[in-house]
């Protein structure tokens, strides 16, 4: 059955190619980082838990020594503008093929659960879409194999260590869970609410969801803690709130927290490198006013509509 094996193999081979390219250009730290990721994708299931832990330590060491930023493009802006005028809207075809094939493939693969793992259908479809799009673009531009590799390395280098951060934070979440961090915070927050006060309970619930999500980087990790500590006992059972409203508003308040934390790295830190922003928290700054206003809106909607 086709599951994560296929996307992981493609990603592993791509990172191996990035590593070879970087080492050939004598960009040692970058080459080492992409080589370690290639090893993780191609051999992660064979080197054991401690082996993976050592691999992580090696990644941390390389990142701390410092990976280099992207090399400047060898294609001049004038040349790119000329090519843009030549290919015009054909440039969008491979770019738009990726979402189209991802969606189509996801539905298609879910229809054959004996061939494809339905849980991984999107991941498999995305990988297939990237490969088909690349083939299409290579044919359209008559590209030599070195071109997508070299350009891919440039983009990967512009993300740099941030590419590994989401996976590191997901692993940290597992350690937090093992240490019972969520329950500790949930218990502390649950203890500050005066008996009988609905508005304080609502504020602690949606505030706790946002803060805990900021701390853990993920509303999914915060939801069971805050709903178990405050949402269920006080809002649903104590004040007879609508359970669907309490749950949904709590989760959405958590999403407001996701917009405000560097711990949600794939949303808030990765684009900083991808877009060449010099302030590491530029995306969070751009989101903050909307996130805070939305959190207040959530609080008001929950308080006004869920308890009648």
């Amino acid at each position: 059955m086709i599951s994560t094996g296929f996307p992981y193999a493609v990603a592993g081979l791509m990172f191996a190619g990035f590593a070879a390219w970087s080492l050939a250009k004598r960009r040692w730290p970058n080459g080492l980082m992409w080589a370690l990721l290639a090893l993780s994708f191609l051999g992660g299931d064979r080197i054991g838990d401690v082996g993976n832990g050592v691999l992580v330590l090696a990644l941390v060491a390389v990142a701390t020594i410092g990976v280099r930023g992207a090399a400047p493009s060898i294609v001049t802006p004038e040349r790119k503008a000329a090519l843009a005028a030549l290919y015009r809207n054909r440039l969008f075809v491979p770019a738009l093929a990726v979402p189209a094939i991802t969606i189509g493939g996801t539905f298609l693969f879910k229809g054959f659960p004996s061939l494809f793992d339905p849980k991984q259908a999107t991941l498999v479809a995305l990988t297939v879409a990237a490969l088909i799009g690349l083939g299409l673009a290579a044919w359209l531009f008559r590209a030599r194999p070195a071109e997508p590799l070299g350009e891919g390395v440039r983009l990967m280098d512009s993300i740099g260590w941030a590419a590994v951060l989401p996976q590191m934070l997901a692993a940290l979440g597992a350690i937090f869970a093992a240490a019972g961090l969520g329950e500790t915070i949930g218990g502390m927050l649950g203890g500050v609410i005066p008996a009988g006060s609905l508005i304080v309970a609502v504020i602690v619930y949606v505030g706790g969801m946002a803060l805990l999500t900021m701390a853990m980087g993920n509303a999914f990790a915060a939801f069971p803690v805050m709903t178990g500590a405050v949402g269920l006992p006080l809002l649903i059972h104590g004040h007879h709130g609508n359970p669907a409203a309490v749950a949904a508003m709590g989760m959405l308040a958590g999403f407001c927290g996701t917009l405000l934390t560097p711990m949600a790295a794939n949303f808030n830190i990765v684009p900083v490198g991808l877009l060449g922003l010099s302030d590491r928290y530029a995306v969070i700054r751009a989101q903050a006013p909307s996130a805070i206003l939305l959190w207040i809106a959530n609080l008001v909607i929950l308080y006004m509509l869920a308890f009648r």
Partner: protein
Amino acid sequence: MIALAGLAVILIGFLLRLQPLLVVAVAAAVTGLGAGMGPLEILAAFGKAFNTNRYVTVVYVVLPLIGLLERNGLQERARALVAGMRGLSLGRLLAGYMLLRQLSAGLGLVSIAGHPQTVRPLVAPMAEAAADPEGTMAEPEREKVRALAAATDNIALFFGEDVFIAIGSILLMKGFLEQYGLMIEPLALSMWAIPTAICASVIHGTRVMLWKPKPSARAELVDGRSFSSADEKDGRSTGSGRAGGEGAA
């Protein structure tokens, strides 16, 4: 209380802008030791979790394609397309993108767009062209336009996807409440996500419509009080933050 030490490490590390991977590794070690785990036990637990979460890093398989398209002028074409549409302001462009992204996410099509696939090659250059048709804007302002494009994608995604009944967060809520004997229809949960989704369109849509570049782009002293003034957390010292370009970009 000792379980919170790891959290303190994260907070201090991110505030001081230390190398984030190192901060995360130290936080994991501190948290694990605080919970009574041995060093080898922590290393194994972290390595195991790192390995099972590899799927979050797979999305970069689109990069060779995006790079090849950019080499052949994708960003320039995206800019030219926007420049050819008179009257397409930054606000209208981003509000339109927000609506499309929210609606498609609400139908469950969450992986249709994203930062590597669409924001970097398409939305960000289009936003720059719409905000600055003459190409005279200073780089700090251009960066804010690109950051706003990324922010718009995130906000539209988060407050669109929860309207779809088969998304992970809805299933998590349903499953969690079921453990406590509360049977809830996924449809009820997704209906309750609609008011906030509308608020998100209105609030963020208004912000992008009202967004204007600063007239004098290098007024350092008033920097913290302008567009990004709503970040209450550190209204004191924003101006100097962007000077340090440590290997991040």
